[in-house]
C-alpha cells in the first residue's frame, strides 16, 4: 500500500512562489493562537516607549508623594504643619535662622528709622541633613515636605474625582443611550445645564460656598456631613462639573452600540435592560472609559490646582500644589522656587498623564478620536 508522507507530498520549495511558501511555513508552525483585544492593545502599548516613559514618570511622582510621611519623618524630621519660626538650622555647618528676626534700627549716620532685612530660609539642597531642602515658607514650614504632602492631596483629589466622574458619567450615559426617549432627554438636558457654565467659574462658585459651611445633608436614610476643609469637598465639586465632558461622548457611543445586532440578539433572548447595559454594552465602551479616565485625571489635577489657588479648593493649612503656588506668589521675586517647583510638579504630572493617555488611546483603538474639550 502506498502511503503518502508529509515529505513525499512536499513539493520542492524552490519551485513555489513566495506567498505559497509563506503559507506552507505557517502550516508547519501549526494553528495561530487567538489574541484578545486587550493583549493586542498591550502589545501596541509596550512598543510605545514615549507612553511607557510617561507612565514611569507619573508613577515616580505618585511614589514620591505616597512616601511623603516617610520623607517627613526620616529625612526632614518635621511635618507639613509645624511652624519653625524661631528655629535655627545648621546649613553646611553654619547656624542659620529659619526666619530671621527683622525689625527696625536707627541709622547712626542719618538718624532715620531703617528696616532690617528679613531672611526666610532658602533651599538648603541637602546641606542641612535633609531639612528644608526647598527652604521654608513664611510660617517656617518645610517646603519640600509640604510639596510632597501637597502632591498627595492633589493626586488624591485628581484620581478620586476622576473615578467618581467616570462612574457617574458611565452610569447616566448608559441610561440615556440605552433607554433613549424621555430618559435620554432629561439626562442630556442635565448635561447641557452643567455644560452651560464655564467649568472654572462653576467649580469656584460651588467650591467657595461649600468651603465655608461644608455639607450637611440629611437624606432621611442617611446623612452626609463634610467639614468645609474636607478634601471630599473639592473632590465632589470637580467630579460633578466634569461629568458632562465624559458623559456626552460616551452617550454617543452607546447610542450607536444600542443599534448593533448583538444587543438585538440579547433582547431577543430575553435579557433584562440592566444586564444588557452592563454585560453587553459596557465592555464595548471600556476602552474609551479607560482612556477618558487617564485623561481626566490630568485635567482634574489642573482644575484642583486652579481651585486651590483661588481659595475654593483645598483649604489652608492643608497643602496642595495649588495652595503652594498661591502662598508662594507673594514672594515670587525673592523666592521664585516656591511657585515654580509646585508648578513644575503639576506640569510634569499633567503632561505625563496626557502622553500616557494618548498612548493608551492609540493602543486600544487607533481609530478612536477620544478627547476632552472645554
Amino acid at each position, binding site marked *: 500500500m502506498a502511503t503518502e508522507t508529509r515529505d513525499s507530498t512536499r513539493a520542492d520549495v524552490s519551485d513555489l512562489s513566495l506567498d505559497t511558501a509563506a503559507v506552507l511555513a505557517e502550516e508547519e508552525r501549526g494553528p495561530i493562537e487567538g489574541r484578545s483585544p486587550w493583549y493586542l492593545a498591550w502589545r501596541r502599548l509596550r512598543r510605545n516607549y514615549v507612553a511607557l516613559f510617561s507612565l514611569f514618570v507619573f508613577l515616580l511622582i505618585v511614589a514620591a508623594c505616597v512616601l511623603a510621611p516617610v520623607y517627613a519623618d526620616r529625612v526632614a524630621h518635621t511635618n507639613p504643619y509645624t511652624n519653625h519660626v524661631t528655629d535655627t538650622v545648621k546649613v553646611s555647618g553654619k547656624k542659620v535662622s529659619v526666619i*530671621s528676626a527683622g525689625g527696625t534700627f536707627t541709622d547712626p549716620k542719618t538718624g*532715620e528709622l*531703617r*528696616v532690617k532685612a528679613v531672611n526666610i530660609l532658602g533651599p538648603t539642597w541637602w546641606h542641612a541633613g535633609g531639612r528644608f531642602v526647598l527652604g521654608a515658607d513664611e510660617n517656617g514650614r518645610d517646603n519640600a515636605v509640604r510639596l510632597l504632602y501637597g502632591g498627595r492631596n492633589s493626586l488624591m483629589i485628581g484620581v478620586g474625582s476622576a473615578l467618581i466622574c467616570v462612574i457617574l458619567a458611565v452610569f447616566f450615559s448608559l441610561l440615556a443611550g440605552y433607554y433613549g426617549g424621555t430618559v435620554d432627554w432629561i439626562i442630556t438636558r442635565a448635561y447641557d445645564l452643567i455644560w452651560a457654565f464655564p467649568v472654572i467659574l462653576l467649580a469656584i462658585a460651588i467650591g467657595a460656598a461649600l468651603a465655608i459651611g461644608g455639607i450637611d445633608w440629611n437624606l432621611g436614610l442617611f446623612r452626609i456631613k463634610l467639614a468645609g476643609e474636607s478634601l471630599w469637598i473639592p473632590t465632589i465639586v470637580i467630579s460633578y462639573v466634569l461629568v458632562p465632558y465624559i458623559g456626552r461622548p460616551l452617550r454617543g457611543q452607546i447610542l450607536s452600540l444600542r443599534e448593533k445586532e448583538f444587543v438585538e440578539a440579547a433582547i431577543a433572548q430575553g435579557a433584562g435592560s440592566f444586564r444588557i447595559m452592563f454585560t453587553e454594552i459596557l465592555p464595548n465602551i471600556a476602552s474609551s472609559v479607560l482612556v477618558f479616565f487617564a485623561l481626566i485625571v490630568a485635567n482634574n489635577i489642573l482644575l484642583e490646582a486652579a481651585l486651590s489657588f483661588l*481659595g475654593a479648593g483645598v483649604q489652608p493649612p492643608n497643602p496642595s500644589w495649588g495652595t503652594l503656588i498661591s502662598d508662594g506668589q*507673594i514672594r515670587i521675586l525673592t523666592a521664585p522656587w516656591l511657585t515654580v517647583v509646585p508648578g513644575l510638579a503639576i506640569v510634569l504630572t499633567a503632561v505625563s498623564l496626557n502622553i500616557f493617555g494618548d498612548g493608551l488611546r492609540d493602543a486600544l483603538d487607533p481609530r478612536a478620536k477620544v478627547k476632552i474639550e472645554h
Partner: protein
Amino acid sequence: MTRRDRSTLVVSVAALTIGVALLAAACGGGGNKSSASTAGATGAGGGSTEQKTFPNFRIVYDTGTDYLDPGLSYTVQGWETMWNVYLSLLGYKHVAGPDGATLVPALAQDLPDISADGKTYKLKLRTGLKYSDGKAVKASDFKYAIKRLFQIDSPGVGFFTNIAGAEQFSKTKKGDISGITANDQTGDITIKLVKPQGDFQNILATIFAAPVPTGTPPKDQSTTPIPSTGPYMIQSYKPNRQFVLARNPNFKSTDDVPATNPDKITVKIVEDDAAALQQVINGQADYDFHPIPVDRLADVQQKYGDQLKIYTPANTYYFFMNTRQAPFDKLQVRQAVNYAIDRNALVRLYGGLATPTENILPPTYPQYKKHNLYPHDLAKAKQLINQAGAKGVAVTVWTSNRDTAKKPAAYLQDVLNQIGLKAKLKVIDASIYWTTIGNQATKAQVGFADWFQDYPHPLDWFDVLLNGDRITQTHNNNYSNFNDAAVNSTIGKLKTEADLTDSVNQQWATLDNTIMKKAGWAPYVNRQFTDFFSSKINTGDCYINHVLYQFDFSRICMK
C-alpha cells in the same frame, strides 16, 4: 481757633493767590490745577496748609470695606475712607502727632456745653449745612441717625446706651429716644445721659454719630450710598472691587474741617500684597494700604526710601477665646493658650515690625503698665490642658484670608495641636470676617482679632471689647464674650470719671492686669505699619498720619 492762626491764614491765602496767578500766566492752562480756593487751618505737627488740588488719588486696598454705611462700618478700611465723607457733630484736627486727637467741632458750631453733673450735653448745628444731594442737614437728623443705629443692630450701639431712653428704645426699636431733643429751627441738640460718661465727646466724634437724612432706610446702604456731609461723597461702589469718592459739591470747608486736595479718590481692591506693591512702584497706583511683604521691606526702603513711611498706630493684635464655647469656657485652657504662644515668634511673622505684648492696652497709653504673666512654656500649657480635661478636644481657629491674619492663625493652630488640642483652621474672606465672628450664631471658638483705637481712651478698649454688658447677638465686638461681673462693674465705675487722673489711670492699668489673669484674650503683638507711595506723591509736608485714622487721604498732594 486762635488769633495767630487767623493771620497765618490770611497770609497763606494771599500767597497762594499770587502764586496761582503767576503760574497761570506762565503755563497757560492744562496740567496740575493749583486753585486758589480757601486754604485749610494750620495745625501743629505737619501737613501743608495750602490747598494743592489734583485730579485723582489712586489707592490700593487689601480688602473690601465691611460696609460703606456710617452706621455699620467698624473697620480701619471703612473709617479711614468715611472719615472724610460723613462728618459727625464733633471731629478731630487733621494734623499729625498727638494733636490729632484734639476734639474740634465738625457739624456743630462749637464743642458741647456740658452740665456740671456731666449728664447733659448741648450743641448747636452750624447753619447752612447741606448734604451732597442738596437737602438741608437738620438737627433731628442726628437723633434719627442714633435711632437708626439700634434699628440696624449697629456694632456701635453700645456707645449710645447711656443716653436716656436709649435702652428702652433698643428693646422695641420703635418710638423715641427721650434723651435726645433736637430743634430744627434753631439747630439746638440736647443730649441727656443716664450717668456721666468720660468719653462721650469722643463718642460724638465717631462716625456712628454722623447725622444721616431722616428717612434713610434702616438697613445696609453701602450699595446705595447715603448722602454725605464731608468733603467727599461716595460716587460709586462695586463691593470687593472698587469704590470712588468725589468732591461733595455742597461741602463748605472750615478751619477745623479743611478743604481737601484730591478731586477724586479711587480705591481699588487688590488682595495680593506683592501685586499691590508693584502697582505703586509702577505708578499704576499712588498709595499702597497693604503691609509690604516682609522679605521685600528692606529692599523697598533701600530703593524707594522717601516714598516709604513707617508708623505705629495704637493697636493690639490678639487671639480671642470664646468663653461661651468649650473648651475656652475653662480658665485653664485660656491660660494654656497664653503660655503656649511664643510672642517673639509671632513678632517674626510680621518681619519684626512689632513688639510682643501680653497687655490689652498698647504701650502708647499712659494707662499701660507692662506685665509678664505668661512666659512662653509649652510644658506648662500641656499640663493645664490635661488638668482641664481638654486633651483631644476639637477646636476651630478662625481667621481671615489676609496674610497678616492667616500666618498667626496657622501658627496658633500648630501650637494648639502641640499642647494637646485638635485644632483646624477656618479661613474666611476678610470682607465678611468680622461680621461672621461677631455673630453669636457662628459660635467661633478661637481666632484672630485686632483692634485699633477709635479714640485715645481706655474705655474704647475695655468697654467696647471686654464689657460683658455690651455683648450683642450680631455685630458683637466682644469676640471672647468675656463677661465677668467684677470687671463689668469696674468698667462701669471708671466710665463715669470725667478726667484721666493718675489714680484713674492706675485703676485702668490694674484692670488690664486683672483681665489678663482671667485670660480674656491672648494678646501677642503691637504692630508697626508702612505707608508706601508712588514717586509722584509729595510725602513731605503733605503727608499726615493721623493718630486715629492713620493716613489722611484728603491732605495728600502731588510733587
